[in-house]
Structure formats: C-alpha cells, structure tokens
C-alpha cells in the first residue's frame, strides 16, 4: 500500500469505511455461501446509570462451531458493539466499526457523538445485508457523554437504525430473552437489577433456543456481561458472572426446571 493521498474533490474525509471502499479493503459482496457459523443471542438493558449487555458465547453452523466466541466488544471507550448472524462478517464488522471510530477521532481530533456512531453503522450493514445472504445484525449500546445517559440502538436487516429506550435483543434466542425482559423491565432499574434481569433473560434464551448456550458449568464458560456507563466499557469478571448464573441455576433446579410464573 502506497501513501494514500487524495485531491480535495475525491477525498473520503474522516470515514474509514468510505476510504476502505475506495481502495478495495472491504470484503466482497454478492457471494452466496449460506453454511457459515452463526452467532446468537445478545441483549442490552438500560438502567438509571447506563446500559448492561449480556451475550452468549456459542457459534453454531450445523454443529456447535465454537463455545467461547466474544460477541460483545468495546467499539471505543464509551461504546459496546455486539453482533448476531454470520460470525465471519460480524467479526469484520466489529473491526471496521472500532477502527472507524478511532480513525474519525484521529483525523478530526474530536470523537463522534453516540448518535453519529449509530448512524454511521447503517450503510455498512446495508451494504452487507442487501448484497449477500451473510446477514449481520448489530446492537450498539453506549454512554452518551454529552447527554449523560446510557442509550441503545438496534438495527433491522436492511440497516435501519432505531433507538430503544428500554431494552433490545438480537439473535435467534431473541423471542425468549425479549419475553423475559418485557415482564421484568422497569424504567427505574438499578445496575444490580439490570444485571439480574439481563442474566435471567439470557438464561431463558439458552434454555429454549438450541443455538444459544446458557452457562456451561462443566467447562466454566459463561455468557459475557458488560456494563457501559460514565466509567466507560467494563466487562464483569468471570467469577461474578458465574455467581449470578449459579443463583439462577440453583433456583431452577429446586423448582424442577419450572420458571414458576414469577420472574424468579
């Protein structure tokens, strides 16, 4: 790669995606290979001081392809980005997003706004999903430093971006996670309440959806739990996550596997 100089009228500006498109760094479109590994259930829940995200660790093609995939990554200091759908394209998408936010910051010496980041991802999703069957659905959650709130943005398959004021889910286990969240969500959730609800929602998805893994006590592999708030992106330690799932699991064992009609 030589020195990428552009004249003023053809300059791609601070957008790494547009630069990558111009120089052929982005992946091919129009390929039709469906049998690739898929990543599943991730949820985001808003609480009073930010957003909690929980995601399972399993990638599934015909069989289980991997048990320890990371589907939630920090996109930058204040933003978490999760993916569901084709793993290969999803991982590339996360890389593109991370790099784009940093690229913008370096080029302009100012960070993109959270809404700016959310909108920026739309055409990237659109380009992928409307030209290949290798679908990727992202979920963006972040702390908005200019408004001092946690915010969640979800996307449809065509790249449409929608802000959610309560919670959002992506992936094949969504119906079960979403049902749990619908019953358990309150607008005054504190951090602990949001982590509890998030863990339970993911537990339900893992229980009912064959492509979503719940807690794996045999291998000590647990879903990822992440908080995004004024302190930035933080991942919960494995022991803390294990403890939360152990509590749910013990309860469920005592009730003989029956959720019990309450959120316990």
């Amino acid at each position: 790669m030589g020195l990428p100089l552009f004249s003023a009228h053809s300059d791609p500006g601070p957008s790494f995606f547009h630069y990558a498109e111009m120089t052929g760094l982005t992946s091919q479109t129009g390929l039709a290979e469906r049998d690739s590994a898929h990543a599943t259930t991730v949820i985001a829940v808003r609480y009073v001081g930010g957003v909690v995200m929980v995601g399972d660790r399993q990638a599934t093609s015909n069989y289980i392809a991997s048990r320890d995939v990371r589907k939630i990554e920090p996109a930058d200091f204040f933003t978490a980005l999760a993916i569901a759908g084709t793993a290969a394209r999803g991982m590339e998408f996360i890389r593109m997003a991370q790099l784009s936010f940093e690229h913008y910051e370096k080029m302009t010496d100012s960070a993109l706004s959270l809404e700016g980041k959310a909108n920026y991802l739309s055409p990237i999703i659109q380009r992928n999903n409307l030209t290949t069957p290798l679908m990727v659905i992202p979920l963006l959650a972040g702390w908005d430093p200019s408004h001092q709130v946690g915010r969640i943005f979800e996307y449809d398959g065509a790249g449409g971006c929608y802000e959610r004021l309560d919670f959002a889910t992506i992936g094949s286990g969504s119906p079960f996670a979403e049902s749990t969240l619908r019953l358990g969500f309150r607008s005054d959730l504190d951090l602990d309440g949001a982590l509890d609800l998030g863990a339970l929602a993911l537990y339900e998805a893992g229980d009912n959806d064959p492509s979503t893994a719940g807690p794996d006590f045999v291998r000590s592999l647990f879903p990822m739990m992440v908080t995004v708030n004024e302190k930035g992106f933080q991942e919960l330690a494995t022991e803390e996550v294990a403890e939360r799932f152990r509590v749910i699991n013990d309860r469920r064992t005592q009730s003989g596997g029956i959720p019990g009609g309450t959120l316990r």
Partner: protein
Amino acid sequence: MSMPFYVSPEQLIKDRAEFAQKGIARGRSMVAAIYDRGVLLVAENPSASLYKISEIYDRIAFAGVGKYNEFDRLREAGIRWADGTGFTYSREDVDARALANYYAQHLGDMFTEGQKPLEVEILVAQLGSSLRPTKLYRIAYEGTIADEPRFAILGGDAETIMARFAEADETVQPLARTLKDAVAALAGPERTLPTSDLEVGILEDRGNRRTFVRLTDQQIDELLS
C-alpha cells in the same frame, strides 16, 4: 514559437530548494526529543485548533512545520496508511519506518517533478516496544530522510535552536526537564513563550494501546513550574 530559456539542472534544484526553504522559514519551529519514558513533541503554535502535532497510530506520532494545508494532507494520508495497514495485516505490523519512507518518496517526487516543491518539513516519531526501537525520522522538503538519535528540530531556525537544546540537554532526561529545555530552546534568550502559544504532545506507555496524548495548558504549566 518562443523558445524556453535553458536552465541548468543545478540551478533548477537550487531555485526549488530556496523556494521551499523560504516557505518553511516563514512558519515557527518545533522540537521533538526522546525523554526517559517516551517521546516529547513541542511546537510553537499560537492556534489552539490548527495542530502541528498529531496521533498517527498506537505508537506513532506526526509533526509538521511549514505550510499547514500541505503537511495536514500528509498527516491524513499517514493516518489512512496506518489504519489501512493495521486493518489488512495486524496492529503490530504498522511500522513508522515504512511510513517515513513513503513520506520521503512523496516529498522527493514533489521536489523534482511537482509544480512546486512542498514547503514542509515533517517528523514521524515512534515509541519503542519489544518489537521496534524508539525512533525519530525527520523528512525534509526534498525527501531527505534522517534518523535522529535523540532529538530533532524542524523549521526555519533549526540550527540555532538545535545548538541551544543540545547544550541544555546532553543526555536523555525526564519529561519535565526535557520540556523546559525544549521550550527555552524554541524561545531563545530574548523571548518567553506563553503556554497558550505551545502545542505539546507525548508518546508514553500508560497501560493503554494508544500511547499518544495531547497535553492541556494546565498540564504544560505544571511540568514547566
């Protein structure tokens, strides 16, 4: 049909060099110096938004003097090159030496073939790691590239400033001392530079992937006091 006058190659190069030097001398100078824990970049710059010093990559910084629009374009190209290389290969494959060479080639091309030579002098600084050493690459308007061992001065009055800085700092020093001596060298004996006229950036390991940080006026004051 009018015949163009014959101009000898020697004269042509001399004229172009003079032109570039004049352009560079119009702007203010800067100092880049290695200190005990990183790399310091100090520029005299009364503007608080048109920067001369900038982050290129995790361990690489850029500085330019001369015509702003010309070196800013090179800065942008550098960021694109670094991010593109890191995206294609891996973050650890982004090497300042490769970038410095591309800059040198481009400046060299512009000097001999361009409509006019670029009126800039630039610096690519790299903070060392287990993979690569700490380096200061200075690239002049005609594409000459120099690998400076401890410090580099860019700009019109480079020789005087260099003499002053070399006298003050004979070995690698801590950040505060290096900054003080760099500012004194830029100012000279007759002037004192107010903090608002200083632009300071450093490359230093602080446990983060990205090592570049721009110092605020308050941080500069604390280091200078």
